[in-house]
């Protein structure tokens, strides 16, 4: 059976909706592997004795093991192995930057193309959703510990921490500010990259383990962290993300129809403004839309605008293509769909009409200078190169910084210079007794998988802490 055969160096491609079609709908862009494709790709895996891929995974998924199960067509086993380390595989398979993590480390990456680990992960997770009954429940509850943990925020950090703790016998309650759980996975990342049904399934799974989720609870307002500790809970894990949008601070930025990406995406994803007036929340779409920024958030916002019917959508980025922080795959998807990229360009001010709605954006050309703190070359303005673009809607996608509600309402919580909560990376401990933190609030805006990793490490440390 195990006969040596020549390895196929190129990975099995994954079907995508055609750009012409998908730019008019919110359905998933990447369609996932079929069974044959998944098997073919799985069989490319060399099952290295010393797998490097695993070390590239922030949560240490047993990658070769789950792929082995796939090779053996033992799907329930593949699910089990995957979920041992990653409680949200359907999400990670879709949005993790595998190209800079596990797949970067794969030995085949040096040959030609690494194993498509993300696509296989997605395949296994999606299989599970359609075969739920054939998975034996892993959640045999261990003995209750009689300890209660409050988790603030239901993004990937909070959900992961909750899933681990409940399976160790803790009583776990998630307190979430919004009316739907899921954090950025629900209100930020659009349907065509991450269907909300998948996020909802993962949340339902966490709930099925016995985690209670209380929505409409803004911690710092309805109760402070100190009150949680005094009244009800033995420990608190803070996972409120880095949800405060940054702006450019240039004239005209508060004109109507100038949105933060958070607002634009929230109106669409969380409030379903694209179904207005069936749903009550409106949104301005516009004919010409400019998105400022070069990360995943900017890609998502621009592609949403296009799908809502904008005719011309620009991405305005102050550095060049090379420095762009968005995943290459998403940038290419955006390019294929017809988003117009203006590199080395920065807005300087906005002008509006008599109703205060934005009409024009003045920009200036940039060039690249010496590398800055981030290691990327610093953009410098080229005086005298100002020019104008007509716009109806502007979306500012510069990233997010920590929301001050929790830091400012909690006693004795040390912060960093950037306003994040000072957190020990290995344990998630903060400067405050019985308070842990993880995810974007600890690191600044990062990734889904790093938030999950932090949630898991904090859960382990909380468990250890109470064993004493």
């Amino acid at each position, binding site marked *: 059976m195990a006969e040596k055969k020549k390895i196929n160096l190129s990975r099995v491609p994954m079907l995508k909706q055609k750009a012409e079609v998908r730019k008019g709908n919110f359905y998933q862009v990447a369609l996932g592997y079929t069974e044959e494709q998944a098997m073919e790709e799985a069989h490319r895996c060399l099952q290295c004795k010393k797998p490097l891929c695993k070390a590239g995974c922030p949560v240490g998924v047993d990658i070769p093991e789950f792929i082995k199960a796939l090779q053996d067509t033992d799907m329930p086993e593949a699910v089990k192995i995957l979920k041992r380390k990653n409680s949200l595989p359907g999400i990670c398979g879709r949005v993790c930057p595998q190209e800079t993590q596990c797949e970067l480390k794969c030995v085949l990456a040096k040959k030609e193309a690494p194993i498509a680990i993300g696509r296989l992960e997605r395949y296994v997770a999606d299989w599970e959703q359609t075969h739920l009954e054939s998975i034996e429940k892993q959640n045999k509850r261990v003995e209750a510990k009689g300890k209660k943990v409050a988790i603030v925020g239901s993004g990937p950090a909070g959900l992961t921490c909750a899933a681990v703790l409940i399976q160790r016998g803790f009583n776990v309650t998630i307190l979430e*500010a*919004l*009316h739907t759980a899921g954090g950025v996975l629900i*209100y930020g990342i659009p349907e065509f990259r991450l269907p909300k049904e998948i996020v909802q399934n993962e949340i339902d799974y966490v709930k099925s383990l016995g985690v209670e989720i209380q*929505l*409409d*609870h*803004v911690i710092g*307002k*309805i*109760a402070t962290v100190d009150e949680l500790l005094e009244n009800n809970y033995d420990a608190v894990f803070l996972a409120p993300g880095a*949800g*405060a*949008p940054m*702006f450019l*601070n240039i004239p005209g*930025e*508060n*004109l*109507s*129809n100038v*949105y*933060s990406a*958070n*607002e634009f995406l*929230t*109106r669409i994803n969380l*409030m*379903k403004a694209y179904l*207005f*007036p*069936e*749903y*009550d*929340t*409106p949104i*301005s779409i516009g004919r010409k839309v400019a998105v400022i920024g070069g990360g995943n958030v900017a890609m998502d916002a621009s592609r949403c605008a296009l799908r809502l019917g904008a005719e011309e959508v620009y991405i305005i980025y102050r550095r060049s293509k090379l420095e762009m922080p968005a995943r290459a795959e998403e940038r290419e998807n955006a390019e294929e769909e017809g988003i117009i990229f203006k590199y080395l360009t920065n807005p300087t001010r906005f002008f509006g009409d008599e*109703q*205060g*709605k934005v009409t024009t954006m003045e920009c200036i050309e940039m060039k690249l200078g010496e590398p800055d703190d981030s290691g990327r070359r610093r953009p410098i303005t080229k005086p005298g190169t100002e020019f104008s673009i007509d716009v109806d809607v502007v979306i500012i996608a510069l990233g997010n910084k920590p*929301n*001050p*509600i929790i830091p400012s309402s909690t006693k004795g919580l040390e912060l960093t210079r950037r306003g994040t909560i000072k957190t020990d990376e290995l344990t998630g401990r903060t400067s405050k007794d019985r308070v842990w933190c993880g995810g974007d609030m600890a690191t600044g805006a990062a990734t889904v998988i790093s938030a999950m990793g932090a949630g898991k490490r904090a859960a382990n440390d909380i468990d250890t802490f109470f064993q004493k």
Partner: protein
Amino acid sequence: MYQLVAKENLAPNFSILKIEAPEVARKVQPGQFAIIRTDEKGERIPLTITDWDINEGTVTVIFLDVGRTTHKLTQLQAGDSLINFVGPLGMPTEINNFGRVVCAGGCYGIGSILPEVRALKEKGNEVIAIIEARHKSLLYWQNRLEQFSDRVIVTTGDGSYGYKGWAPDQIKEMLEGGVKLDRVFAHGCTFMMMLCSEATKPFGVKTIVSLNPIMVDGTGMCGACRVSINGETKFACVDGPNFDGHEVDWDLLMHRQHSYLDEEKESL
């Protein structure tokens, strides 16, 4: 789900809702608001918390029927539920012993100023409440305000009750007549709060207004509620909603409030 314990019509197009929300009732302070959503397809809209009862575990809001969501709210009856009720949000109003203060309320502000009136009185201020309406039929809660203040002055735009004119006129008259005011608070429509601020500005009387920009999350996540205060951008939901009226960019606020006028008309 958050049950409506009581619902009443206060005046034409004005309703009052009493909602079961014990945790919010325990924490709320004057000047704070809540965000509500009526149903799965509903919008999140902010409403000031106008009263609360810790023992009963309820909070009260008063609203004017102006559009889609407030219209849905008007249709609800006691026993019905709201799908979401989040609060208390925003920073509480600074309450101190200032001396002699005016609390001006118009529109829904006649109700939403009550917590400030009560707290200021408790702190030992001399509290003068001034309320305004276009016509006497649109007035409510005069009695309740009288209960917690030293004096209530009523004005109507058409002179059908009390003084003819508006709350800002009364403030101006007092100040011009040499009455010393130590602080003014104003709640209501944007235009009224602006006029109150204009009335006090020449006399240097600090005026705190409760701004009402369009909001989405109410937690500082989206920036929809951006206002310009003394040239600096602030998020009304987390930095406010109470600001110094002399520092507010009123044009910007009004423009931003009307961002969706066309869409809203289309939806009704």
